[in-house]
């Protein structure tokens, strides 16, 4: 895990939303996940609001599928906190996958803070419909 304790970034110099980024404290955030099994693939959907596409990291190592992302909350300049229900941190979650998955075929998209992985089943894990031949 990256141990960046006090990283401060300047956002682009747009006059409206110039903001500083709160330091990450290395806190792990476990994203909420749905896993759906379809006929020839799985879909894994993870809520990762506030994560940036550039910080997303998806790895498959042996039988472990890990998703990671950096969540940085932005504090508007010259403002102080009135209420705080979510904080910066690192999204991270790991799943064990079994042999029936085509590791090389995994595809990922990220839209509106939602990561979506399409994980194809390997050829022999797919349900095959056997047609019954008429006698």
């Amino acid at each position: 895990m990256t141990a960046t304790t006090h990283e401060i970034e300047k956002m682009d110099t747009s006059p409206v939303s110039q903001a500083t980024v709160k330091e990450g404290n290395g806190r792990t955030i476990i994203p909420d996940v749905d896993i759906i099994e379809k006929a020839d693939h799985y879909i894994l959907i993870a809520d990762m609001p506030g994560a940036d596409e550039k910080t997303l990291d998806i790895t498959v190592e042996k039988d472990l599928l890990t998703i990671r992302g950096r969540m940085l909350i932005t504090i508007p300049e010259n403002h102080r906190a009135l209420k705080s229900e979510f904080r910066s941190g690192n999204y991270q979650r790991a799943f064990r996958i079994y042999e029936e998955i085509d590791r090389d075929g995994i595809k990922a998209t990220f839209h509106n803070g939602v990561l979506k992985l399409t994980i194809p089943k390997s050829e022999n894990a797919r349900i095959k419909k056997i047609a019954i031949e008429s006698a």
Partner: protein
Amino acid sequence: MLSVLERDWNPWYTFERMEREMEEFQRRMAQFFGDLDISGTAGYPPVNLWQNHDGVVLHAEVPGLEKEDIEITVAGNTVTIKGSRKAEALEKDERFHLRERRTGDFTRTIELPYQIEADKVGARLHNGVLEITLPRAEAEKPRKISLN
């Protein structure tokens, strides 16, 4: 493949269940003791509020929602966020192995300590985080009184 037997036929195994439970426990404790910093999930969506003399900036986590799915209304000193997140539609023979993401309708009303200048409210959506700027009504802004 012994671990398959342990887990029934489910090919997925989530490791952080313990961790998740710990976090939930800590959240509840913080809520119980009134810890301001992590005030727990009081409602959905979770919000952060930032304040200065000119008003409040509200951030809300709304992953998966499009602009069209969100309705913001301002009345007096309150702002209401309404929205709906659709469930993934399953076809025949498809099923969930894990289902944690919340779906359905939500409404959350947040009260501010002042009247909002409704005409100047702005909102934008970025990476699943909604930002609403809620300027303080001009008449309610603090004024400097100069001494003669």
